[in-house]
């Protein structure tokens, strides 16, 4: 196994993954807001080699974003309060999309709205657009005054909104969740029941940093969203919790810098991952993640990424169930997998059963 000659003769690892109707070459996507509209890094990252490119969240109207200071570094991470600066629906469709299509990227368009109605109008306008493989609904921006993470952290609202969006596209619908909730699992279940093809876990964590000299936030707003390696352990747990709660694929996001980081998310059940802040540090980060992931799997003789996925799902006694929880609630936190409602109905989540198999192998 160690001789390089043999290794190079080994077959390629099958990295393809399926997210709803999308068949992706590999599970590495760029995270919304960290890769522009997709073309900005195209001279250093050949876009078709990535699993997909998730574009900056687009809103109905263009937004100029929040005033400076918009970012602040913290230990192992950064806070941002960009405030969804974006070109708006019309320019996205007329200028950004054609360029991105011409580069051969698998395009996932991120959309954000302050109300379910706004999201409907956005998806109505883009849902049939050729060349968009899927849509990520940003239910979790911590940096806008209305329609941000807090507004959407209500399971019923998510479910109803997704049910209204579902008919508007045949593309994949990804629901991007905030981590700042008591149970990401509950939100994930609501998304699944509303008809989402996948959930993305997670967006940034809300945080603060002060400038003591000015006795005020370092940012132009009181709070921002924390991203980067600092949040990786937390994002990993939330991703795992979501993956155990639903059967639809979960896409991991939060602090992924390397292929090994990505494999951690997939080992706890993620079907794919997103590379975010890492691209600011190394523009080729997503490609590097992909290469490292493949090299690691090849070296260990893992032929298909599917065999890796879920292979480290915890066995279940991790965090206590809430004994006082009302039975009517659909809540699954990170409790015993075989007690989750899905499993009580005798259905194993694909991630979980796959994990079992590969552990047997």
């Amino acid at each position, binding site marked *: 196994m160690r001789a390089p000659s043999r290794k190079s003769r080994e077959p390629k690892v099958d990295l393809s993954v399926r997210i709803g109707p999308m068949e992706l070459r590999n599970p590495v996507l760029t995270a919304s*807001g*960290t*890769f*522009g509209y997709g073309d*900005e*890094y195209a*001279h*250093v990252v050949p876009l078709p080699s990535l699993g997909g490119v998730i574009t900056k969240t687009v809103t109905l109207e*263009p937004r*100029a*974003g929040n*005033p*400076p*200071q*918009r*970012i*602040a*570094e913290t*230990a*192992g*991470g*950064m806070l*941002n309060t*960009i405030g969804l*600066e*974006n*070109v708006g629906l019309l*320019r996205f469709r007329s*200028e950004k999309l054609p360029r991105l299509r011409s580069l051969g990227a698998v395009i996932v368009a991120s959309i954000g709205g302050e109300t379910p109605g706004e999201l409907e109008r956005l998806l109505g306008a883009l849902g049939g657009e050729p060349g968009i493989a899927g849509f990520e609904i940003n239910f979790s921006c911590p940096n806008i005054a209305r329609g941000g993470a807090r507004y959407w952290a209500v399971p019923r609202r998510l479910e109803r909104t997704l049910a209204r969006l579902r008919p508007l596209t045949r593309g994949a619908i990804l629901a991007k969740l905030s981590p700042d909730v008591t149970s990401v699992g509950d939100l994930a279940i609501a998304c699944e029941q509303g008809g989402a093809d996948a959930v993305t876990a997670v967006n940034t964590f809300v945080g603060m940093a002060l400038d003591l000299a000015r006795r005020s936030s370092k940012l132009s707003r009181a709070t921002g969203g924390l991203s*980067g*390696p600092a949040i990786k352990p937390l994002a990993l747990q939330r991703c795992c919790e979501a993956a155990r709660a639903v059967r639809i694929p979960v896409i991991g996001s939060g602090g992924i810098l390397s292929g090994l980081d990505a494999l951690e998310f997939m080992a706890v059940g993620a079907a794919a991952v997103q590379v975010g*802040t890492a*691209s*600011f*540090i*190394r*523009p*080729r980060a997503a490609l590097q993640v992909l290469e490292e992931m493949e090299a690691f799997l090849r070296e260990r003789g893992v032929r298909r990424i599917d065999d890796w996925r879920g292979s480290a799902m915890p066995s279940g006694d991790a965090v206590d169930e809430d004994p006082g929880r009302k039975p009517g609630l659909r809540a699954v936190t990170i409790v015993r997998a075989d007690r989750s409602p899905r499993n009580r109905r005798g259905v194993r989540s694909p991630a979980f059963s796959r994990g079992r198999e590969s552990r047997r192998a």
Partner: protein
Amino acid sequence: MTVAVSAWRQVRGRVDQQADFGAGHRWLELRVTAELEPPDPGQFIQLLIPSHASGAFLPRPMSVASVRPLRDGLMLGFLYVPIGVGTHALAALPAGAEVEALGPLGRGFPLDRPGTPVLVAGGRGVAPLLFAAESLARLGRRFELLFGARDRAHLVGLDEARRRVAGRGRLHLSTDDGSAGIKGTVVEALDRLSPRPDHPMVIHACGPHAMLAAVARWAAERRVTAWVAMESVMACGTGVCRGCPLARSARGRAAFGSQPPSLLGNRDYAMCCTEGPVFDSRDLDWERIE
């Protein structure tokens, strides 16, 4: 004006040497591979220290202070002040240490504009202007270099400056305490260079924010064009993160006009890292920039 929006690359660099440069400043010589395009004066590099050797997470933007071609790459010079975790980590790197260099980034000083270039440097802001002086000298163009600081000891890089103006430019010093050159600010030094209608001047300035604001006022009052190198907290340095906005003035908004928002910015905000760091001082809203 140099538009280098997507000519940048991230390449390996190696500390060739670095040393104290007086008054708390450091001079760093970084050897980078040939894939890096040679930067222009006013452009900057994002320096990334390997994570094991630095508590800093994001790369740190640094103006290029000198460029020397090597057989297989470039030797970049940086003049910097260790102030926080990133720059202290940089200062602790011994010769041979690896640093990734992303660049060249942003748009530099438009030195080719007609008129006499007047380079105005405050404190460590001298870094890109040393480079500008060298370029101008190499092109055989005459220029003025105004260099101001708190006191003589803080005129860091003075010898470099002297060497670079030699023959081609004139050096005008100013210090707050009069310990070198005139007693006063660089703006007072500017006053002494009366603009002559037949020889219009174009200012290229870099220094503390208050100095740049004063230069901008001075230039506006005299209808002189002033190009100012701005700073902002940055993450990506490439226009993608949208983290480094600077508010445009009414003139700046009008100039941006109905352009589509782009890597350069939008109608309200210019991105410091792509449209800048060098701006026409009239295009920025100095009231809304801290």
